[in-house]
């Protein structure tokens, strides 16, 4: 055994992510073999996970934890029980084959290294998701799968449909991700537990709690978006824009099964209630039938499989909703069986597409002679999808029918739905595997020939495993079914899988009925397709269109909001800012009674007598006079340049006041700021080619003047109020006392700036720098503005790109009408 179990289990999730970082580099040096080499990592993970099986079987589960945020009591904890082990081995096993397959499928693609990186990263996220015990870790991995699948679906980013599919998948699954976060936080607040394993131990779980409905809604939204349940299913077919290996991986054992996994995981403490059963069974049933019927509408092999995946997900959700022992056993067997045949069939379709140049079922035929091994692989996959013995899928079907042979109408309804859904799925499987290979040979865009070995290993092996698992039925039941179902039901489950075919058992006849119905659907595929297409046309709209409309509405709303707030009229911005300042100053003073501190009290007597002029030296009076003169000139001057200069004079006078009253540092800085602001204002004026004189009409002048007066009075009153109180000198005393001994500086102001409050200063200089960059951007955009046309978001854009970048909606600079530039006159 590995010495440190905690670290090695964490490594299962982390190793693929590390490998993802190294994959492009590795690919550069081992070009033709990189697929085989990189597949070693998931293969090793698979082997390690399998080696854990005896321990899991003996102890029920393995817990592992490493410190994450110890100060918050958060651990990165993992939990390996039958359920997570089943999922994790399936993910890593199929992942290894997918990586080998990708090496063949995308051979020579310039971004194959990047593709491998995305694939491995996705796998790591997925493994982390199914192994995580801490719910926050689960959420993080959940979101990581969304991000990495976004990269994978949009891998062929030059095509708009690929980008759209990627964005749609990201948006839809992220809605669920947010719901999951809310649900996780709610559960933690209610129970105080971060760990899924701890929640299983709670008596009656969450079922009795008042917020059960809300928590359930959050988790169901998360699971239904991820697992593409009706009516949130539409992203899945669009995600088929991804290269086929991605579809084979995402839509067989991983991405879309995350929702199923979540539902299975929370069953012990959320499941079993009436509402749980009703919701899951109804949504699952509708999704099953909808997906299966929609599959007939398609002629694209990949789309047929995609729609059938939706149906299979519905089936799994339905079974989890039923929650009986046989249903849960059906979940485990069906998950494994589905992963095996669906991944295999996707790979087969990829091989057909790769070799013949098309995947349109009507344009394919008679490939069996040209691609015999692929045909065998397709046949193995179809055996599974039809659910024929000797594949493990046969037993999945048997198991799910078994619990429903009660004479209640609900059970009968579900049974009918299951038989119909299974039959339709079986027919789709047969179509995919038989139509392209048998019959008359049809000319294809490329002259078809056998796929390379890398693309055959996967489907053949998976089909083989499906049969081997069925042949070793006892072991499968003991090692996979019992611990898996036991983990979902939180009790010991005994496998009763057997090869004994009993003709008196009605379950067998259910299977036969399924096959019969499937055969009929297979024969009538063309009729069903016409029917479904007519139905879709009659319906007139799809959820897909709705999504586009919603996205466009969002963009339009954002544009309108931006135009409202970011209109680009500087005088309105400044007016608003100063009005708010006035409000902030005046409200506390008058509405909250701050002014009372300044009002003369009754015992002051004749206060007019007590007021007197401050004892100032003549030069000090001079300085005050200077400030006043500056102020007056600013107000009355009509020439802008005079105003700017007067502002400088007034500021300099203020700086002198600081100097006289003992704040040399402040004065020093104020001087420099005044000088620079005069220089910069003058420069701005010349650059903006402003008129010499301020052309403001009287009403604007009066409005601005009143605003200025109110702000100024407010500041003055505030300062006076502050001075009436006692100044708390603890802080300044501390600085005075310690600046020399501990900070080694006599200039307290500077010591505060660079030492005591150094962190603040660091922030301030970063802001200064950022402001500088922004100003430089403004300055350099001026030259280009004239030529660049400003687009508005209202311009009619084709509805295929819902997330087009929002065009700039407001001019970036407040310049009024441009006039011919005047050079600054030489003196």
């Amino acid at each position, binding site marked *: 055994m590995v010495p440190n179990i905690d670290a090695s289990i964490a490594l299962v999730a982390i190793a693929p992510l590390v490998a993802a970082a190294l994959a492009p580099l590795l690919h550069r040096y081992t070009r033709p073999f990189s697929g085989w080499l990189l597949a070693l990592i998931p293969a090793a993970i698979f082997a390690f996970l399998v080696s854990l099986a005896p321990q899991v079987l003996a102890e029920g589960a393995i817990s592992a934890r490493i410190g994450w945020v110890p100060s918050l009591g958060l651990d990165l904890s993992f939990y390996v029980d039958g359920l997570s082990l089943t999922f994790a081995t399936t993910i890593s096993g199929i992942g290894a084959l997918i990586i080998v397959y990708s090496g063949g499928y995308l051979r020579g693609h310039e971004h194959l290294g990047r593709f491998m990186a995305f694939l491995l990263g996705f796998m790591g996220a997925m493994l982390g998701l199914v192994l995580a015990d801490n719910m926050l870790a689960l959420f993080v991995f959940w979101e990581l799968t969304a991000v990495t699948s976004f990269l994978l679906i949009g891998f062929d980013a030059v095509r708009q449909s690929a980008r759209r599919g990627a964005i749609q998948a990201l948006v839809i699954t992220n809605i669920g991700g947010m719901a999951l976060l809310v649900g996780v936080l709610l559960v933690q607040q209610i129970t105080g537990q971060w760990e899924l394993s701890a929640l299983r131990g709670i008596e009656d779980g969450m079922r009795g709690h008042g917020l059960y409905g809300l928590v359930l809604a959050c988790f169901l939204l998360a699971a239904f978006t991820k697992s593409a349940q009706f009516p949130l299913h539409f992203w899945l077919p669009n995600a088929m824009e991804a290269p086929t290996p991605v579809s084979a991986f995402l839509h067989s054992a991983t991405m879309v099964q995350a929702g199923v996994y979540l539902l299975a995981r929370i069953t012990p403490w959320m499941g079993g209630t009436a509402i749980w059963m009703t919701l899951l069974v109804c949504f699952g049933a509708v999704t099953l039938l909808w997906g299966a019927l929609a599959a007939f509408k398609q002629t694209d092999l990949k789309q047929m499989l995609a729609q059938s995946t939706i149906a299979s997900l519905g089936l799994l959700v339905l079974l989890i909703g039923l929650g009986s022992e046989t249903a849960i056993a059906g979940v485990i067997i069906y998950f494994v069986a589905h992963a095996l045949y669906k991944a295999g069939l996707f790979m087969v379709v990829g091989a057909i597409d790769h070799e013949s140049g098309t995947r349109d079922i009507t344009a394919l035929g008679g490939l069996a002679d040209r691609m015999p091994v692929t045909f065998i692989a397709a046949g193995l996959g179809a055996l599974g999808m039809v659910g024929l013995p000797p594949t493990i899928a046969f037993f999945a079907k048997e198991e799910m029918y078994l619990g429903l042979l009660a004479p209640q109408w609900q059970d009968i309804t579900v049974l009918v739905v299951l038989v119909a859904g299974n039959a339709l799925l079986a027919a789709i499987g047969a179509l995919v595997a038989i139509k392209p290979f048998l019959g008359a040979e049809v000319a294809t865009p490329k002259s078809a020939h056998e796929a390379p070995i890398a693309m055959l290993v996967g489907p053949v092996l998976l089909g083989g495993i499906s049969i081997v698992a069925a042949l070793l039925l006892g072991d499968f039941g003991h090692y996979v079914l019992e611990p898996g179902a036991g983990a979902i039901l939180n009790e010991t489950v005994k496998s009763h899988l057997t090869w004994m075919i009993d003709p008196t058992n009605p379950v067998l006849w259910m299977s036969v009925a399924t096959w019969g119905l499937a055969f009929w659907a297979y024969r009538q595929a063309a009729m069903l397709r016409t029917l479904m297409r007519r139905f879709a046309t009659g319906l007139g709209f799809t959820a897909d269109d709705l999504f586009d409309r919603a996205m466009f509405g969002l963009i339009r709303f954002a544009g309108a909001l931006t135009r409202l707030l970011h209109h680009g009229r500087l005088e309105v911005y400044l007016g608003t800012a100063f009005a708010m300042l006035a409000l902030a100053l005046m409200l506390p003073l008058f509405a909250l009674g701050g002014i009372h501190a300044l009002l003369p009290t009754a015992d002051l007597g004749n206060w007019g007598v007590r007021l007197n002029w401050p004892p100032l030296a003549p030069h000090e009076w001079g300085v005050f006079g200077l400030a006043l003169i500056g102020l007056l000139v600013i107000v009355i001057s009509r020439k802008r340049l005079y105003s700017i200069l007067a502002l400088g004079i007034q500021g300099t006078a203020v700086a002198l006041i600081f100097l006289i009253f003992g704040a*040399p*540092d402040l004065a*020093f*800085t104020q001087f*420099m*700021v005044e*000088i*620079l602001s005069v*220089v*910069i204002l003058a*420069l*701005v004026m010349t*650059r903006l080619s402003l008129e010499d004189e301020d052309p403001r009409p009287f009403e604007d002048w009066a409005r601005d003047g009143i605003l200025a007066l109110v702000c100024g009075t407010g500041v003055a009153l505030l300062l006076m109020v502050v001075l009436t109180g006692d100044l708390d000198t603890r802080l300044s005393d501390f600085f005075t006392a310690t600046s020399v001994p501990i*900070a*080694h*500086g*006599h*200039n307290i*102001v*500077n*010591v505060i*700036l*660079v*030492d005591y409050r*150094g*962190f603040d*200063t*660091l922030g301030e*200089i*970063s802001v*200064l*720098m950022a*402001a*500088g*960059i922004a*100003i*430089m951007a403004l*300055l*350099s955009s001026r*030259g280009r503005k004239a030529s660049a046309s400003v687009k508005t978001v209202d311009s009619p854009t084709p509805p295929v790109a819902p997330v087009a970048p929002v065009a700039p909606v407001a001019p970036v600079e407040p310049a009024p009408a441009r006039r011919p*530039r005047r050079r*600054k006159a*030489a*003196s």
Partner: protein
Amino acid sequence: MNTVIFRTIAPLIVATMLVFSIYVCLRGHNEPGGGFIGGLIAASAIAVLGMASSAAQARKALYFDPLSIAGFGVLLAGLTGLVSVFNNSPFMTSIWLYLELGEATVPLSTPLLFDIGVYLVVFGTISSIALGLESNEGEEP
């Protein structure tokens, strides 16, 4: 602005201001001054130079792009804060080093380096704005 007198005197003023700005920056810990004021003085010097000759020439005289100088300043200030981490103290704990050079003692410290970072940021940002405004329409600001 481009009189002969101004153009002749400007380099002198600029040089004096630059030296003075460094002096102000360095003495800041004990006397009025510091990186912020020093940076403002130096930036004014560059603005004056830009007015006397041209923005392009002032840029050339600076050699480094002013915004890069500012960026370097932020980096320097941030990195000096990190020094103490290697000393097992929290971020931005000051470290002092008294260098004995014969009779004189030169105190060196991380706050000094930090202040120089502040100086560079203020200097770089303000002079890049000033030069950007001074440059003519045609040239890259």
